[in-house]
């Protein structure tokens, strides 16, 4: 699998898109820092951007890479290489190169600004870790979609819908149901609903760490009350790991049965 990972990364690092993505984060980081002049405020703004944008990029790149590397995959399938290594290697190749663009792109301006000596260092690290998780989760989901759809247009469509649902519609439905059922105890429901969406989960995780109660919102407050700040962070991190493992397992299972 490491060989496949190596060649996928190699292939991706030569493609223009990784650099565009990298340059975008570099610019975003720089602009935010020089406009805000305050590290912890820049981290909050960055959180709002990362939480929406990283899943989008992960989904689109995942789907795009799968369809673009179809020939490569077919070539590999005739070689003495395990199927699961081919697909997991490619998936990790995309996810890791995206993570690299994110971490290096944002890390550089913040490092120059002196994040290492500031109080916001742990928040910033958590932000990057969450970004990495979101990349892994959404690329895996996108890979699942691409594996189950031969038709590119359909695959892209479903991928965009998935992102739209998770990033926008989910919260709307969630809030509406909170209003509709306000007479009932909703603590457990909102806990589960938050855990069922990796984007919400990441937001709560970062806000718990930042300890800004004004931004926590209802779910964040419930999280904090239910688990306390530290345990809440542990629980949401575990949930994020599960969110990576489950779709990855499905990639493994689907890849075993697919015809080429």
């Amino acid at each position, binding site marked *: 699998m490491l*060989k496949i990972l190596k060649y996928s990364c190699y292939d991706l690092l030569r493609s223009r898109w990784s650099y565009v993505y990298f340059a975008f984060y570099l610019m975003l980081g720089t602009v935010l820092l020089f406009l805000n002049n305050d590290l912890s405020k820049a981290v909050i703004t960055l959180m709002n951007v990362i939480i929406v944008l990283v899943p989008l990029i992960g989904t689109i790149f995942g789907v795009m890479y799968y369809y673009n590397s179809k*020939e490569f995959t077919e070539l590999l399938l*005739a*070689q*003495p290489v395990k199927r699961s290594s081919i697909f997991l290697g490619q998936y990790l190749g995309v996810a890791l190169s995206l993570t690299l663009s994110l971490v290096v792109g944002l890390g550089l301006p913040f490092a120059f600004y002196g994040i290492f000596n500031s109080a916001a260092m742990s928040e910033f690290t958590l932000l990057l870790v969450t970004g990495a998780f979101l990349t892994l989760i959404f690329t895996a989901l996108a890979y699942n979609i691409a594996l189950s759809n031969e038709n590119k247009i359909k695959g892209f469509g479903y991928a965009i819908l998935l992102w739209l649902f998770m990033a926008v519609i989910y919260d709307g439905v969630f809030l509406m149901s909170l209003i509709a059922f306000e007479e009932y105890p909703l603590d457990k429901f909102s806990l589960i609903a938050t855990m069922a969406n990796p984007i919400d989960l990441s937001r709560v995780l970062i806000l718990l760490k930042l300890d800004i109660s004004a931004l926590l919102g209802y779910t964040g407050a419930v999280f904090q009350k239910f688990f306390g700040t530290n345990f809440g962070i542990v629980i949401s991190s575990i949930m994020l790991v599960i969110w990576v493992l489950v779709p990855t397992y499905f990639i493994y299972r689907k890849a075993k049965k697919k*015809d080429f």
Partner: protein
Amino acid sequence: MIQIKNLYKKFGKNQVLQGVDLDIETGGIFAVLGPNGSGKTTLIKCILGMVIPDSGTININDYPIGKSEEYRRNIDYLPQIANFPSNLSVEELINMIKDLRVIKTAKDKELIEVFKLAPYLKKKLGNLSGGTKQKVNIVLAFMSDSPLLILDEPTSGLDPISLLRLKELINSEKEKGKTILITSHIMSFVEQVTNDIVFILEGKIYFKGSISELKSKTGQEDFEHAIASILQKSYA
């Protein structure tokens, strides 16, 4: 060498393979023939493990496939359509396959010489013409010297001189005692390289034997007409 028993495969509603039974002995060239959509490529892809059959078994050297991917180390495959990752160069691709298959004594150098590919080595695969891609394809398939060679439409896009070289190459591999499976629609090419054919029709083995047997079975004087007469019967 290869034993296929009762192989079935369905794509959606399309039943492609309907109980294929086939034994391929070690050594020699076998042409797998059949009309478009008869299941030739599907059968080959089943042997390679790229398509997973609904039922039936395939044994290679008395070892069932599907348990491990190691058996593919003994198979060289030339795919029908030469699709390669477009931002790799020819040289990089050759080195990558060598690395993945862990080939120690690759004969890529002499094959590059035979097909005059040296000027293209540094070029990106996406910028090559169809025929040049097919030559690269041939180099990749022949370089690792495996005992079983599967060639799916090896002649597509080749110029006459390369075609000649390919025939020589196939014959020299046969001399070494390899087993070679070829699919092709060009009957004259098939007739030149082999005498043993397997004819697939509607997902079943319709005929297996020599060309002369086929001629006497169909009562036709030449090979091309013999094949055409089978097809006409099946369409009628």
